[in-house]
């Protein structure tokens, strides 16, 4: 478990980090909490020549409110930061709670929201929440930067829309309309606590009790986290009762191309779990709406 030798840089500004990134090109890797990157380096499955540690860049670690009312979280904010942020607890309690369910205390103290999204682990928790909460991802490159909608972010196994020369700087979580409830439910892998399957749901219910909007993100099931669009469609415009939940949950796996089949769960079991946790997440979200 000793990685191949590498050079190490610890810039203190995003500008410096970008400069280093341009200078070292493909030989470089950004280091956030290191809880995904370092294990694969120790196994020598990843052998970067140089690491650019984002850990000393204070402008990347904050939680606040953006001008447009979005909740803005710096990419280097840790699960611990998010779990303990009064603002997150007030605005999106489900996100703070989910942060407290990630791995263990050590992982929560080191792992970051930026690293989690950029790494796009198929079993990661935050990708499901990011989809349900409609994250906007703000990035910087040497030339400029952009905002990427979460729906266009997860591309394939461990692959995102980020380019090698791009740094994810912050995520924006749009303000939730009144009557919205958010919930995340997972079956934790008993060894790592990653999600065997996890489902996040954000459901908005109008005064008349009819669902006006629903976003459901599924993680752990396939190569990437996906939105359960069929489920959302069934929920929207309905007065959600047990029968609707059952019908909607049944379709939660429809957008998963291939269910993962591994040591921790067979594809068949994961497909089943997707419906179970979709139902639980929807129910839970509903109980928090209104």
């Amino acid at each position, binding site marked *: *478990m*000793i990685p191949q030798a590498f050079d190490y840089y610890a810039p203190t500004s995003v500008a410096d980090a970008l400069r280093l990134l341009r200078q070292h090109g493909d030989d470089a890797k950004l280091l956030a909490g290191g809880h995904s990157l370092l294990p694969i380096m120790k196994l020598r499955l990843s052998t970067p020549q140089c690491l650019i540690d984002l850990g000393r860049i204070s402008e990347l670690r904050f939680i606040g409110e953006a001008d447009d009312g979005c909740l803005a979280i710096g990419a280097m904010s840790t699960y611990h930061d998010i779990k303990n942020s009064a603002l997150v607890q007030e605005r999106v309690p489900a996100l703070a709670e989910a942060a407290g369910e990630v791995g263990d205390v050590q992982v929560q103290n080191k792992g970051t929201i930026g690293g989690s999204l950029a790494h796009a682990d198929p079993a990661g928790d935050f990708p499901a929440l990011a989809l349900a909460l409609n994250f906007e991802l703000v990035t910087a490159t040497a030339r400029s930067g952009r905002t990427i909608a979460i729906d266009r972010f997860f591309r394939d196994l461990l692959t995102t829309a980020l380019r090698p020369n791009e740094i994810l700087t912050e995520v924006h979580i749009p303000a939730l309309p009144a009557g919205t409830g958010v919930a995340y439910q997972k079956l934790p892998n008993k060894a790592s606590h990653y999600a065997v399957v996890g489902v996040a749901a954000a459901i908005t219910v109008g005064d008349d009790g009819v669902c006006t909007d629903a976003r459901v993100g599924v993680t752990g099931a396939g190569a990437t986290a996906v939105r359960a669009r069929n489920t959302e469609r069934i929920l929207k415009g309905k007065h959600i009762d047990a029968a609707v939940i059952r019908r909607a949950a049944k379709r939660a796996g429809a957008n998963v191309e291939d269910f993962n089949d591994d040591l*921790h769960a067979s594809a068949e079991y994961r497909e089943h779990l997707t419906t179970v946790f979709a139902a639980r997440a929807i129910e839970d979200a509903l109980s928090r709406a209104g």
Partner: protein
Amino acid sequence: MIAGQVSKLIGSRVKRKEDPRLITGEGKYTDDVILPGMAYMAVLRSPYAHARINGIDTAQAAALPDVLGVMTGAEVNERCSEPFPLFAILEGMQYPERWPMAATKANYVGEPVAAVVASSRAAARDALDLIEVDYEPLPVVVDMETAADPDTPVIFEEMGSNLCYEASDQAGDPDRAFAEADGVVEARMEQPRLIPNPMEPRATVADYERSSGNATLWVTTQNPHIERMVVAQMLGMPENKLRVVAIDVGGGFGCKINTYSESLIAIILAQEFGRPVKWAEDRTEHFVSTSHGRGQAQYVQAAYKKDGTLLGMKLKIYADLGAYAQVISHVIPTLTPSLAPGVYACRDIGWTTVGVFTNKIPYDAYRGAGRPEAAYIIERVMDLIADATGKDPVAVRRKNFIPKDAFPYETPTGMIYDSADYDAALDKALAIADYDKLRADQKAQRKDGRIVGVGVTVTTEVCGFGPAAAMGGLGGFESATVRVDPMGKVTVLTGASPHGQGEETSFAQIVADDLGVPFDDVEVIHGDTSIVARGVGTFGSRTLVVGGTAIVKANEQIKEKAKLIATALLENKIEDTLDPQLVTLEDGLFSVQDMPDQYVTWAEVGAEAYDGQLLPEDLDPGLEAVSFWEPPGLTFPFSAHIATVEIDPDTGEVSLTRYVSVDDCGTVINPTLVEGQIHGGLAQGIGQALLEQAVWDDEGQLVSGSLMDYAMPFAQEFPMFELDRTVTPSPVNPLGAKGIGEMATISATPTVANAVVDALSPLGVTHVDIPMTAERIWRVLQTHRRGRRGGRS
């Protein structure tokens, strides 16, 4: 309790002597050893489960800066004068020779193939990537039952089969028992392989002095003296030229009994390159380089009468030894049929034990070693009979208990149970759990559609090893040296090698009570063969039972001599002669009855022992005693456990809702230490029931090869354990102690398994294999929900 002694510390919750050191980071582990000029070793391991090694090119690796050199398996093995010794050879067994490294053929993933020494750990690791090995993959044998099949490729051609042994035997007349039975229950039970994970992985540091030929080996071992014996023998070295040191060792659970290749390789590299050499495995390496545990397929048939009496059993047990037998690993499976009768009076048992070689890392003792597998069989059988006869599992157990007046009791399999009262332990557990209410609640909860179960077991196990006859050449004794210094302080040297159990504390308690000295005046030293001349070590819950008794025996000699010295001192004080027989030792003071104000202390006795001015002519100076004690028999702790579980009907997840553990380990020296052993033991046993299993693919690759993939329980998954005890002293040692290291692990697995099966019994389920993972239970629910309804309710 020591006969005739007023006890002060024995039985009380004395805080662990070793904790301040360990908790504040002052513990010294093997990986903390740093020697001048020390170099680092890395081991190249076979990536194939079975492959011929046609050649190794080490040139590139050796050329790397900072690399001192590389040795191949053939080069290392050549330096050994003999292969690994085996102990307790079974009649008719065959086994392959094993050398420290694979030279011409690798037989499991992880077998050492070459070793590098470099001036840094990182450089040694880098060099591994540059060693080129020409492997020719061979057919791989993974499954133990397939391995036993004559059509399966043979791993060691010279042996003609993959069998280590196939041994059949019987006690009583099982055929008659089956003929007379009202019914027979049967099941195939699987004991998955487990991967022991002590907090500290293995490490070793070797130092070799070319001028004298003396070597020192620091190593993570449970038994430094056995390590010294094996290493010295294999290197053709006299034992007195090898010093083995186990400083703080962070747990073992059996996996640190074996002498591993790395000890030999490190010494050989130190000899070759003239530098001290350190090797320390990391967790990932540990998974493929340190022996595993369990691994059995059990075919069980049990004959019963309608009233719930167990009449007889027939067992066929396959044991997956992995690629080699080591130390006494091959004997461990034979303990399973030996203990299969459990706490029950059944006399007619037939069994076949098949030890097979596979292309897996060798297996060895793991917390319980053969006894958990036995307890699992018999405690599942009791529930199968309860299910078949429609009786309560508690009633079936009571019906079959060996009665309390039958002890010492010889089992049909030849074990002599020392003492027990199973009803008493069971009564206590039932009372704590409020069993009748549990059953009533269960009925109501089931009506609400909940899947809830109650599991009950009453188990026993064998520990406190020797005597010598039970040890196959390892020795059945333990040694103790008790030394009183001129200040009257006591130093104890023990041949046992505690590595987390806390005997520095419990041994000091025994000495403090026995000699009447303050607890803090007792130092306990262990683990260094240059200080402790001989010992056997710590395993099979023998440390307190055998090692503790050796201390009591040494204390007797000390007290006897101390009284003679005290007599001389008292005579000097009163200026008169005294009969030494009249001198008594009480509360640490030596005096004679009719002169209570005339006394001498241990400090005075200690000083005089070495100063010697007043010693009578026939008394040699010094105050030190050595005792080697071998127990006349084995001890059999026992326990009654009750668990309750609830199953999530949607996911199959099992939650453990209560756990009651009533254990009897005879005399309790320190309840805190005993409870610690029980807590940890329960965690391991429950982990085995619900989570843990090593998984291989068809190529013999360990798929569950890290703690991200091999699930061990987290503390938060457990309810608060409800502990209590009964105390049935053992007659086989003066302490009355029985050993508690394995008991809770052994009981916990079948207790939880029984609870889960009980929960599923309304669906007609009678057996589910462990580990009872969520997916496995979900599948059971899937198949049985559509099936018949019935069973106990």
